[in-house]
């Protein structure tokens, strides 16, 4: 199917609406993506036609719902090239997945063990590990970044040792768009016997990762950034880790047998899926994956690269505008400031013109600390954005600059 932008835009009902009297220009895709009608329909269809609790009932409706949920799991398995469907654990999102793994490691790590984070992380991939260090006495080390917003791999190599137990890095930085060399990061960690968790929240709407080829131990992501609903995500966990890690939460669904003397746990993935899950969310996540694949990731990447290059060029024509995050091969995020205008001021004015961007520290305060700035204005693009929308952004930013200086 050729990449037809008009047809794609027509799939997203929200893109027809107006904001503050102007057509919506949605450039906050790194925070969450918009949803195509087919994903919305999938949720409505579930509740209208086969809503039932899963894995429990003998009745037909429950069987239908269970099948749909498990088919969604298989869609994820296939999409991410995961060996076994039971290595796909449904979570409520990236944050949940990271906390689940961090909690499991509190029974594995010992005082003096080292774990490694990067300077480019979202707070979701920092705070749970700091809490883990407090619980276990493990030590947190940080891979530094350079001015382009790329990680310094030679410094990473120096941090690794036989004390290193776990490395956790994002696939793509949400604040800057940097794509990290995760294949190399994983290989180097494995060389010293450390496990690796990759935070794919920001990557999966742009890139289709092959998790077996990457040989990663844990990979987490959120459906809502990939045209799916909020409140559902994936934690991939290699089978051996699934056996080793203790359950995160106790409850229904995750047990094999319960007596008051002793409970035995269910196998993967149910061991980590206590309680009634977000059933409609899981099913719609599968639909979103189908939708993205029907457009084709190679087409998405090629189109988004064009939009990013155009936006970068046009924005840089504005005098005094500085872009943060200039590593080669980044995804479609432009994080910028103009002279010493506060990003909040620019965000407020462009919002009045119907343009949605994010301002602030993007839950990545260490990056802002590195650049010594209070935050940035961040425009993040999806495959349904157009050059015309980029032009609208540029005009709005120019207007804001005029009003604010």
């Amino acid at each position, binding site marked *: 199917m050729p990449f037809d932008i008009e047809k794609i835009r027509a799939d997203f009902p929200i893109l027809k609406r107006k904001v*503050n009297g102007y057509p919506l220009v949605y450039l906050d895709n790194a925070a969450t993506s918009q949803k195509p009608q087919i994903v919305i329909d999938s949720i409505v269809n579930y509740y209208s036609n086969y809503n039932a609790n899963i894995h429990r009932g003998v009745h037909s409706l429950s069987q239908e719902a269970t099948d749909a949920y498990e088919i969604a799991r298989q869609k994820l398995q296939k999409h991410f090239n995961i060996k076994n469907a039971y290595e796909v654990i449904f979570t409520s999102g990236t944050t949940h997945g990271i906390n689940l793994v961090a909690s499991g490691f509190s029974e594995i790590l010992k005082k003096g063990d080292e774990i490694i984070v990067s300077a480019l992380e979202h707070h979701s991939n920092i705070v749970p590990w700091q809490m883990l260090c407090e619980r276990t006495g493990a030590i947190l080390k940080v891979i530094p970044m350079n001015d382009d917003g790329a990680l310094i791999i030679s410094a990473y190599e120096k941090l690794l040792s036989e004390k290193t137990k776990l490395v956790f890095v994002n696939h793509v930085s949400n604040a800057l768009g940097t794509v990290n060399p995760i294949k190399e990061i994983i290989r180097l960690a494995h060389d010293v016997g450390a496990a690796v968790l990759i935070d794919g929240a920001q990557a999966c709407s742009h890139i289709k990762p092959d998790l077996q080829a990457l040989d990663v131990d844990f990979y987490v992501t959120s459906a809502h950034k990939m045209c799916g609903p909020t409140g559902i995500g994936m934690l991939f966990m290699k089978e051996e880790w699934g056996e080793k890690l203790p359950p995160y939460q106790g409850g229904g669904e995750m047990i094999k047998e319960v007596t008051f003397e002793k409970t035995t746990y269910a196998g993967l993935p149910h061991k980590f899926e206590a309680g009634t899950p977000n059933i409609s969310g899981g099913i719609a996540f599968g639909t979103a994956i189908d939708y993205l694949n029907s457009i084709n990731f190679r087409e998405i990447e090629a189109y988004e690269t064009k939009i990013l290059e155009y936006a970068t060029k046009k924005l840089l024509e504005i005098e005094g505008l500085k872009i943060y995050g200039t590593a080669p091969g980044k995804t479609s995020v432009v994080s910028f400031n103009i002279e010493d*205008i*506060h990003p*909040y*001021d620019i965000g*407020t*004015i462009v919002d*009045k013109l119907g343009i949605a961007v994010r*301002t*602030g520290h993007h839950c990545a305060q260490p990056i802002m600390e590195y650049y010594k700035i*209070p*935050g940035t204005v961040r425009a993040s693009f999806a495959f349904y954005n157009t050059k015309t929308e980029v032009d609208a952004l540029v005009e709005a930013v120019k207007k804001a600059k005029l*009003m*604010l200086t």
Partner: protein
Amino acid sequence: MTISQIQEELIDEFSMFDDWMQRYEYMIDLGKSLPIIDENLKTEGRLIKGCQSKVWLNAELKDDKIVFTADSDAIITKGIIAILIRTFSNQKPEDILNANTKFIDEIGLKEHLSPTRANGLVSMIKQLKLYAVAYQAQLNNS
């Protein structure tokens, strides 16, 4: 002038503009004329929580009135503060406590009144009123 007179005056001034851009430009100008807080008063303790931009607010009692000074690193926020200070500074604690903030709506800045808005206008108003409560107690005790 009483608080409600000042509010009427502000509503009058803003009614001259017929679009948001002029209103914002005026607000930004008001921000530039803000009585700037003393550099050494920009302390952690005077920072108002709940703003994406930084806002420092200082209050002092002069006779029986409160004098507010403030600053922000964002200029639109400064404009909002300027409007609040013009309304509430040099007023008696009791009058500050009895005043309402409906005028913000009437001058066309309603969107800033939402408690989920990251500019912290709501936190600022709360802070102004907290100072009024504190100083009123002080006045009653003396």
